[in-house]
């Protein structure tokens, strides 16, 4: 194309320089340029459209510009001279591949996408990738959204947060230890600020019974308290003391921790050196809420603050004993039937039934 318009040849070289410079200096450099943008730079004499196209094509050939096509039509993007230099010495296939990886940026590109876009033969594609990798131009990467896809990225840049999954991922794996540790830290902090710890234990003693307790009443009392073992073990009474000491804050209390306070707390605490932004802390708080460990209250300068949900007595007791476990339980889960693996089959007269149930046997002889 350039040779056909020989008369303007020298012109093009200087115009090219001017246009490239204008592009680099333009404030909207990473949004890409349209034809009209080039004209607006006023480096092309007489707004000659033909000339613009020629100059642009030259720059594209030199890899200083690259063409993109979005919904609004064709446009050009500028590329630095160093990056452009990397294109030198590539075959056209390699160039096509490299260009795709290059334009994918920090998100990386799936090998399958490259193949479908370039329409290259598998062998050629693989040799191109290999060549580019050995030259150190691209490298493979992993994305957390699709861990099984083979992705490529320019070796000079780091994958985006979307691909790495942000702070919660280490080497593309969800770091559950880290997450649960942070959640515990947050929970303990919120919990410490959610209750008032009374100095005197127990709100009210059981009114002393002056009347004689008959056998039946005693039995009824025992029935009432059947859920707990008759003789309280130490861990239980300790838990009960602690449980009764936790008093609610008065209504309208404003000092429940807020998101920004919690973010700051994590930032200043020695538990992690990673800086976690507020939205990631929010994510953790959401999960704590889903786990029913904390809840939102309307208070504080931000309008929303967090307070811990009061633990059940059983939960506390288990904690005191150092057992991990789910706190809530009810009549169904504590009976053998609630957790029976063959509950569906259970039938009087069937292969398993109430009369030959070994779970009942065990439960009743406890």
């Amino acid at each position, binding site marked *: 194309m350039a040779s056909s318009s020989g008369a303007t040849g020298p012109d093009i070289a200087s115009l090219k320089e001017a246009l490239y410079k204008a592009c680099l200096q333009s404030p909207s450099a990473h949004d890409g340029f349209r034809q009209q943008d080039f004209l607006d730079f006023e480096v092309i004499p007489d707004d000659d459209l033909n000339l613009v196209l020629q100059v642009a094509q030259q720059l594209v050939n030199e890899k200083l510009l690259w063409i993109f096509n979005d919904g609004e039509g064709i446009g050009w993007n500028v590329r630095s001279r160093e990056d452009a230099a990397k294109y030198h010495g590539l075959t056209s296939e390699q160039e096509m591949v490299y260009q795709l990886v290059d334009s994918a940026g920090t998100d990386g590109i799936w090998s399958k996408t490259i193949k479908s876009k370039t329409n290259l033969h598998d062998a050629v594609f693989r040799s191109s990738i290999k060549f580019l990798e050995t030259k150190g131009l691209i490298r493979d990467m992993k994305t957390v959204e699709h861990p099984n896809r083979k992705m490529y990225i320019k070796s000079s840049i780091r994958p985006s947060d979307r691909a790495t999954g942000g702070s919660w991922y280490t080497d593309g794996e969800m770091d559950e230890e880290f997450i649960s540790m942070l959640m515990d830290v947050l929970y303990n902090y919120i919990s410490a600020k959610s209750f008032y710890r009374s100095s005197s234990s127990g709100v009210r003693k059981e*009114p002393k019974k002056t009347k004689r307790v008959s056998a*039946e009443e005693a039995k009824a009392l025992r029935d009432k308290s059947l859920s707990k073992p008759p003789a309280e073990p130490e861990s239980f009474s300790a838990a009960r003391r602690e449980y009764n000491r936790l008093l609610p804050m008065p209504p309208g209390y404003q000092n429940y921790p807020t998101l920004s306070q919690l973010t700051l707390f994590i930032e200043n605490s020695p538990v992690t050196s990673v800086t976690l932004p507020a939205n990631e802390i929010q994510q953790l708080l959401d999960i704590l809420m889903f786990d029913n460990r904390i809840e939102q209250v309307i208070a504080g300068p931000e309008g929303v603050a967090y307070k811990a949900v009061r633990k059940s007595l059983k939960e506390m007791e288990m904690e005191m004993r150092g057992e991990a476990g789910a706190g809530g339980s009810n009549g169904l889960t504590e009976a053998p039937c*609630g957790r029976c693996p063959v509950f569906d089959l259970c039938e009087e007269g069937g292969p398993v039934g109430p009369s030959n149930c070994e779970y009942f046997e065990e439960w009743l002889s406890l």
Partner: protein
Amino acid sequence: MSRSKHAVELCALLVDETYGELTSRIFTILLRRGRLPITLLAQHTRLSPRQLRHGLVVLLQQNLLFYHTDIDSGLTHYEANHDAAYALIRSGKILNIVEERFGEQSRDVVQNLLLLGHTKVADLTAAYEAQKPTSNGHSNGHSATNGVSYTNGDHANGIHDSQVHSTGQLHAILHQLLEAGLIEPVNQIMFTSPTDLYNKVEKELLPAGGTKGIKQKEELRLAIEGRMQALRDQRPDWRAKGNNKRPHNGDGPNGTIKRRRLSNGAVNGNSQYLDESIRLDSELVLRINYEKCNVALRSQSLVSLANQRIGETTSYVYAEVLRLIEPYIPRCRIESEKDSNLFEKANVSTAELSAVMSSSVNVALGIGKASKDKIDTKMLEQASGRKRKANEAEVDSDGDASSDESESDEEMVGAGDDEEDPFAEGQKRKSGQAKVTFQDKPEDRQSRMLQLRNHLMLLAADDRNLLSKCGGGGQGQWTVDFNTLVKHLREIELDNLILENFGRQGHRLARILRKFGKLDEKQLPQHALMKQKDVRTKMVEMQMAGFVDIQEVPRDNNRATSRTIFLWFFDMDRVTAIVLDNIYKAMSRCLQRLEVEKRQANDIITAAERSDVRGKEEEVLSANQMNQLREIRGKEEKLLAQVARLDDLIGIFRDF
């Protein structure tokens, strides 16, 4: 309405357990086969007409049957009443409630009513007259009765000093219970099955030309339901006519009315001698009002929720609030328009509450302290106002409420001091007793009111909306939105189940789904911060149990897996139904197991029940036998307690 297999099984077991084999045979046939006339019933049960009639009488006496006599053919059909059969399991809890509120004597009366089914006042009186010398308040009208109640394993040894001593006292107790609504006069409608009643009313109300279109049909349905409710509420007036000495408010008489001390000196602090002069119509037929009892049971679960979520003292306050509201609530499920009007009256003001709140509950305690600048109740008010509007509940009196707030804000800081002796004022008042008189100075009363208000506001501010504010009069009017609360109760129990069965992760995922509704499979790991693989495993595990389910939305006609969106969802109603059925099944299993255990220990049980052994087991039986007896009693207690706890869940999921 047909019930699930497990519900039927359970009902049959309960009838069997309480009223013996004859009745349960008839009842089971009716449950399985639906309504039957007596000839077919005889065929299926293979009982002699005499036996059959005997059994039917017992069942009818207990309101376990509905019957319907066709006007044209004169044929009577019998139908099983599931709800009444199920209610048998609650008897223990009802007795507990009655005892707690009205004392032992009332409990005794209710126990008799439970055993006898619906009873004429005259018969009840006669039963008591006859019983007097035997000093055992537990006669049971039917030979088939084996007298197992669900509170306390056996009640062979009656409580001697809790006897009702005179007819007048009996009448007073009945009067009190009627006032409270825990027992009710029987009317004919109660023996007609809901379907029959519906048909009957429909026949009456159906316009000549029939109904056209959905709208008219809907109108007719509503009209019928309203009429049915009206018919149900139509009860014989039990208030004795011409007796103007009516005690007010069901609180029983106070000081002015004579008290009679009885010669045998059974005076124990809380048993009360009520007015002798109340006489009920002796032809009045009474029965237990299970619907009202459910209201009381619901209050109990709500109080324990408050205790768990906020604290002990606040839960006492809450209990008092609920008790004050209860008289306005005839039953748990309030649906029709007419009832919701009735519901609006169900509120209580801080001042009213403070007047009846027992002084032994020190409301100064139970709330933490904080400096004034950290407290701002305005925001709370606004927020609750918003919440209320969002809920489309009572939108009235918003401005009213907030203006009332501001004046007392300053004083509302923290709550009293910790050092004050909370036990100085003695026992908590039993509710049957005279009102507490306030001797404290006015300013004390004022501060007490403010402390009370603090507790009430805590309840209102809670995430579960334990209480909601509905007006500013009398230092704030409060009401309870039972429908939402019960929904919360259900959610909590479901969460517990899920937490226990599927661990913390399953619990998290289920709650996420409940919040977001339907959620794409790919979104779940992001919200839960869990590995995709773990999420899938958990979800499938829960799907197998029926707790969550998946919906496939293909993006094109090929329905290829890769082009399909998978949406997970958590259907509360469905899960509730599944859980209910599981609970029914677990309950039957417990009862069946109990039967097995008892059969195995048959020897020792018969030995212990011999009339010469009863009451002095320890002397007569050998050590070995005693051990066996204890073992079986222990197992029985365990299993029955378990059944009672399962029943709590049924209450939450079905009745409340």
